[in-house]
């Protein structure tokens, strides 16, 4: 039994097969990267895992549980968090509020308790805050706590996405192009953080990425995708030297 397994999954939009019978397995504690040219179906796979799309065939297993038919909002509670390629933050709220939303799947308080703000709510809020502060310290976001997201620079927002996902204390984190739009230094930071997430927090990482230097630096295994189909999988070096992958990127 593997940690996370995608088993023969397909996704069809009308006549277009965005994902075509893709299978792979992620082991606990590794960094697994999906690469592929634009439109290869990478983000579609992420949307399938976070249950925003329904697969037209196949199954997804998290541990021994089949998560194929679960509603989207239960995925976070199971321990799968994600970031978005095009930044889906809560624009008109503070960074702190954004991160606290990441704690939502650990909410235990009831509506009537919250209306009165009973001591139980206060205790729970304190605990959420403590966890959020840990993440803020890890990702060095202290300076932006009280800032509204819509006024923050792109790089900070990108890190905030990662922070929000970490706040839910996931077992598996899905990173959708964590380095897109970042400059060289920011990409460097990101690669350190991704390794910290794996080594220090013990979170398994499933990542979609274009930047091959980042991929080579952090990934344990790589899966190459084109036109929704698996081209190759293995260590970064193996996949990069695979003739089909070279053909897909450079043309024949």
């Amino acid at each position, binding site marked *: 039994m593997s940690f996370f397994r995608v088993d023969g999954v397909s996704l069809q939009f009308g006549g277009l097969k965005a994902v075509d019978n893709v299978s792979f397995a992620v082991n606990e504690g590794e960094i697994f990267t999906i690469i592929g040219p634009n439109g290869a179906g990478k983000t579609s796979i992420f949307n399938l895992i976070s249950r925003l799309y329904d697969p037209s065939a196949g199954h997804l297993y998290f541990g021994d549980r089949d998560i194929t038919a679960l509603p989207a909002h239960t995925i976070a509670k199971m321990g799968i968090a994600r970031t978005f390629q095009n930044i889906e933050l809560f624009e*008109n709220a503070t960074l702190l509020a954004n991160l606290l939303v990441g704690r939502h799947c650990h909410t235990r308080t009831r509506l009537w308790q919250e209306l009165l703000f009973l001591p139980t*709510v206060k205790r729970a809020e304190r605990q959420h805050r403590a966890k959020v502060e840990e993440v803020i310290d890890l990702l060095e976001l202290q300076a932006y706590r009280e800032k509204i997201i819509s006024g923050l620079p792109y790089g900070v927002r990108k890190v905030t996405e990662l922070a929000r996902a970490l706040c839910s204390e996931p077992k598996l984190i899905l990173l959708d192009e964590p380095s897109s739009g970042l400059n060289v230094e920011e990409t460097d930071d990101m690669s350190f953080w991704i390794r910290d997430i794996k080594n220090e927090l013990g979170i398994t990482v499933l990542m979609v990425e274009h930047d091959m230097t980042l991929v080579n630096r952090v990934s344990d295994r790589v899966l190459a995708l084109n036109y929704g189909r698996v081209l190759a999988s293995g260590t970064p070096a193996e996949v990069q030297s695979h003739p089909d992958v070279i053909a897909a990127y450079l043309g024949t």
Partner: protein
Amino acid sequence: MQFFFKTTYDQDLRLIQHRGQLIAYLLLLGALAAAPLLLSSYLQSQFVFVFIYAIVGVALMILTGFTGQGSLGHAAFLAIGAYTTAYLQSKGVPFAGAGLFALDLNLPWLGPGKLWLPHLGYFLWAGLLTGIIGAIVGFPALRLHGIYLLIATISFAFIVEEILARWESVTHGNEGLRVRALQAWGVEIPTNQVSFYYLCLAVLVLVIIGTLNLMRSPTGRAFIAIRDSETAAKSMGIDIAAYKVKSFAISAAITGLAGSLYAHKLSFISPEMFTLLLSIEFVMVIIIGGAIGLHGAVLGAIFIVMVDPLLTWVKDDVPSLAAGIANVLGLGAGRAQALEQSLNSIASAAGLKGAIYGVIIMLFILFEPMGLYGRWLKIKLFFQLFPLYKRASFKRQKTYVKTERNR
């Protein structure tokens, strides 16, 4: 520029952040408590309307401002609260209390019977029943966005208006219902008395505190998350359906409480008082006040309630005033009279109020999208930063990447 240094995380959990705020709100509360001693009975009555509109404004702020779901059906929620009050009062239910009471029902498919209900007093029943109906209205809202949701809530309001006009055994149809003076805890609280003013003020303060508590808890953050990005909210484990229904229910329940006070204030209710125009007034409350915080609901309520006497004054006095000025400027008595007549006919035209409301909404959306409260924040910042205020301080950064949004 003032800085508030934070030394514990608990400071962020407090309802009131610093001493200046506490002093300001205590002063405001003191002024409002002392106001009836100084004000004329007309102004006191206007204040009561401000309180009631502000309660509805807070309710609509939760739904529209915080959860991002529009509604043009809040007049219907107000009506349900008002009619629950009038009906239960006529059955001898007190304003507040505890125990059980029997309701004689004659349902078409069950025959006559008695329904025993816990006796919360009709005030809480008005809120509870409206809240339940609000939750039911919330369900279709799960599949509707933006303008389609508005249309659905308008149709809900029309349905309620129609039911109120036709269900004569309960509502007396278009004849309307009389609401007797409020009696609670063995004391009579007539609507024109100071005690009713304090009751409305107390309800408003409690509603605001409850809402603030909600907004600093997970539920409030979930509302804001749904407003800003449903996709991300879903991925963070927020059950969108449940929270939208909650938002509708809470908003409706608060409006129901306001409806109960409204019924007492007017002491007579009929279906034509709860029209689309009233719903639009409520939306104006939050647009003009600024849909960015609870301050907006209160400021908007003050504006809406006070704009009515202003319009009446304009209607009554401006034509003759204009004619007088024209006469003085040497236009001649005949032409001044003609001017007065034409101004009078414009002022008495039907639908003028609606048109003026429309113009006000448009001007606010175009030039002051953050409303009166936003203007107040800008003025405050101007003085805090004094000579360094930038005109772009409140401009939102434009984001161009909005592709691949899956709702």
